[in-house]
């Protein structure tokens, strides 16, 4: 299994799968941008990488849509950082997209006959 080609990822991103990835990362707790990129990398076991040039525009777009909320958090002795968390709308969108994605994946499996149980 190869890494998902970044070009493909960018195309996927446009279709909305990248949005789902980001929303899912933030479901449990608020993260800053670098943490988000690391979390995706870890969860995909290094198969999926978001570079800086793609990650932040996407974060800002989701923020403009009202799915995320970014806010500067200052901690003692550290630089302030911008943490992103899901908004209520973001949670709803995540639930719906997850459902859609599941349906899509199941459909793909059935069509392609892959032996995922």
């Amino acid at each position, binding site marked *: 299994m190869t890494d998902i080609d970044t070009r493909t990822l960018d195309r996927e991103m446009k279709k909305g799968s990248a949005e789902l990835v980001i929303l899912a990362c933030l479901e449990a707790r608020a993260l800053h941008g670098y943490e988000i990129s690391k979390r995706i990398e870890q969860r995909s076991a290094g198969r999926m990488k978001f570079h*800086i*040039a793609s990650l932040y525009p996407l974060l800002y777009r989701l923020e403009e849509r009202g799915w995320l909320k970014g806010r500067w958090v200052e901690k003692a002795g550290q630089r302030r950082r911008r943490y992103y968390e899901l908004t209520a709308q973001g949670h709803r969108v995540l639930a719906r997209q997850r459902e859609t994605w599941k349906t899509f994946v199941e459909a793909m499996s059935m069509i392609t006959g892959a032996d995922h149980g």
Partner: protein
Amino acid sequence: MAEWTNELRERLARLSLAPERAAEIEEELSQHLDERHAELLAEGHDAAEARRIALAELDAPLALAPQLAPLRQARQPEPAPSGAAVRRGWAGLAHDLRHAARVLRAQPLFTLVAVLTLALGIGANAAIFAVVDASLLRPLPLPEPDRVLAIAERTASETHANVSPLNLRDWRQRSRTFAHLGATQDGVGGMVMTGADGEAEMVSRQWVTAGIFEALGLRAIVGRTFSEDDDRAGRNAVVLNESFWRARYGADPAIVGTEVRLDGEMFTIVGVVPSSAEIIGRSNLWGLAPLQSMGERMRGVYFLRAYGLLAPGASIDAATAELAAIADTLAAEHPATNAGRGVAIDPLQTRVVGEDLRRTALLFLAVVGFVLLICCANVASLMLARAGARSRELALRAALGASRARIVRQLLVESALLAAAGGAAGLLVGAGILALAPWLVPDGLLPPTVAPTLDVRVVGFCALATVLVGLAFGLLPAWQATAGSPARIIASETRGSTAGGGRLREWVVIGEVATAVALLVGAGLLLRTLLAVEGVDRGYRASGVLTLLVDPISDRYPTPADLLRFYDAVEGEVSALPGVERVAWATTRPLGGSSFGSAFVSVDGLPVTEGDRRRTADYQIVSNGYFSAVDLPLVAGRAFDARDGSDSAPVAIVNEAFVQHHFADAGADPQARLAAALGRRVAVRLSARPDAEVVQRLIVGVARQVKARPDEREDFVQVYVPLAQNPVDDIFLFVRTPSGDAGALADGVRRAIGRIDTERLVGIRDVLTLDGVVAEATARHRFRAVLVAAFAGVALLLAMVGVFGALACSVQQRARDSGVRLALGAAPRDVFRVVLRDAGRMLALGIALGVAGAAVFGQWLSGVLYGVQPLDPPTLLGALSLLLAAAGAALALPAWRASRVDPVVVLRGE
């Protein structure tokens, strides 16, 4: 830690991000790049390699910027920067305002003087504008002001004569161009009103014909107006003025239909009309004067002022042509009375405002305009001085990067703030002046409906004046303050940019002096006019005489004999009153205008030329006691007496001007001329028609000249005839009291007439003492003179403040020069002289320009001048002395200060 800012900024540059947002993104991405860099180092890359990879990720696989571009925050290209600029602009303006307020607060004296100066100028202008607006600019307060016309009769000698009631009746019946025609008797009289509550009070009342309110385009608010039916039935009906109805009856509609007792007679209140009906006369109520019942005799009696409402679609030209045609027909039908009588039709506005008010209002507007100009000049001069003093501060700001526009804006904001404060205070001043106006403005100058008030239009005028004023006195200093190069100004030790500013100030002051001179001369001319008018020898003694117009309009006195009996009875009854010395009758009140008009005269035995045919004389009918009642001496012959009865030979008394005109051939000796006049016959015709009745009258006396108007330019020619030989029914009663107030006789005289006229068929109006007549006749001159003089005084004061300010400032700026001079041995006198030389130059130029201006101003005033030429040397001299005296006071202090400069202090460097 690596620095990423430049790389990021470069990539974000083409996006249109708000500056704050761009900074946030830079911060956030820098942190990311830092961590990525650290991660790469940890993976074993060297620093340069780590940096290269991290940066490469900014551009691969897709560059950062194109992905950010579609975002809203990156797409504020048009609104974002301009919005920011606007915000910055507003923030800058707010900053400027705060700064200006601070600067002005820091100099309270300057601010106070500037604001008060502007308040004075703007306030005076606002008040005068209110008058001009109310009288000249605004349409009459009627529903259809353009359709309401004033109609008069035109005769050979009068362009606007009163109208005969029967002519009015015929116009009304025959005209198609007028929807309504009505008339009033001129003058508002008083009546004693007794209400249902039994309380008696004096109310003002004007007699009007049916149709008058319709002619003004007015409808009754409650009830109705007078109908033709009221007229035919000869009903005693009155209509109330709305303001009187509200004040006296609490706006009770039930009052309509009830009766009130007026001068003892019962009248029915038929309705209430809006107060704008006061345009015909300021009256509490209007009584119906019936036209239908008037006998044919009334065709030759002219006592009405007529008004008409144009029919829809009719033009004033069509109406004029139609009434002229009707007048021609009437002249053919009634040659005895109507031959030679035409009509004169004007829009009501023209008649109401009148030439005198128009001229006075424009005169005042010009004068206060000049005063405002001086106010602006003074404040500009103050600002220039401040700008001069602040030139180094401003130059420093320019050197530190403030653009010229920025500094100009700062100074303009200061001007605007001053102007706004001045405008607001000016509004208060204007309101104050208007509140005092009723006591200042002579009765009759303003038409009844013109009530100048402080309203939106006046406030708007103030606002406009404020803006213009702010620009006027703000631009000059702003321009001047930024004209010089910063380096030069900062380098210059004492003078700064004041050389140029000083010259500018000098010209401002020269302009002020010129304006003050022109206004002083104008005021002088008007004061001399007033003195001439007041001091004129009127030819009679005015004090202690009460006059009132007695008007027995009624068929109660159908024959001349009846009228004479009535007059004799009244004379006897009034003579019997305590405090009455003499009683007489006359158709003309000296200085009060003629109620009868002119007659055509030619002296018998003298060759009759074509010109003679048009020779006229004021025709005055007087009772025998008239000459002694007003102390009018006869210079030759005798007064009328019992010999001159109705059946005796017709006689006349002429005046001195008559003798001058008609007996000049008798030689240069006045006595010879008088002798030539006595015993001669004069043919008197009351109409220009060739077939008009001619009465040959024997000249039995020559009376002294009296003035018909206070400012008449030519002695007017008069012929007096005895009342017994020409009884008329519209005549003034003269009552002389030897001591005390003649006005106090009024009620007694009224009651005395009431005892003779038991049926109350006699109208009594225009109750006024002869002193009152004189005061009324000269009131306009006094008003004009006093007001223009007051403004000229203000202008002089302001101009001198300007002179003082300019000199004081130049002395301060020359302190160093003076110090050097004094240190080098000059006497204080020499320094004094330098200052005086500066002042002299400014004053001389200002005076030269001012005299030229005064010549133009005087020419423009010539229409209202009397007894003085537009270019009057004594007036000019007086104005200049006043100016020089004031200038002396203004420059004493600065000159003294210049000579008292301590060289040591100055040379040490201030």
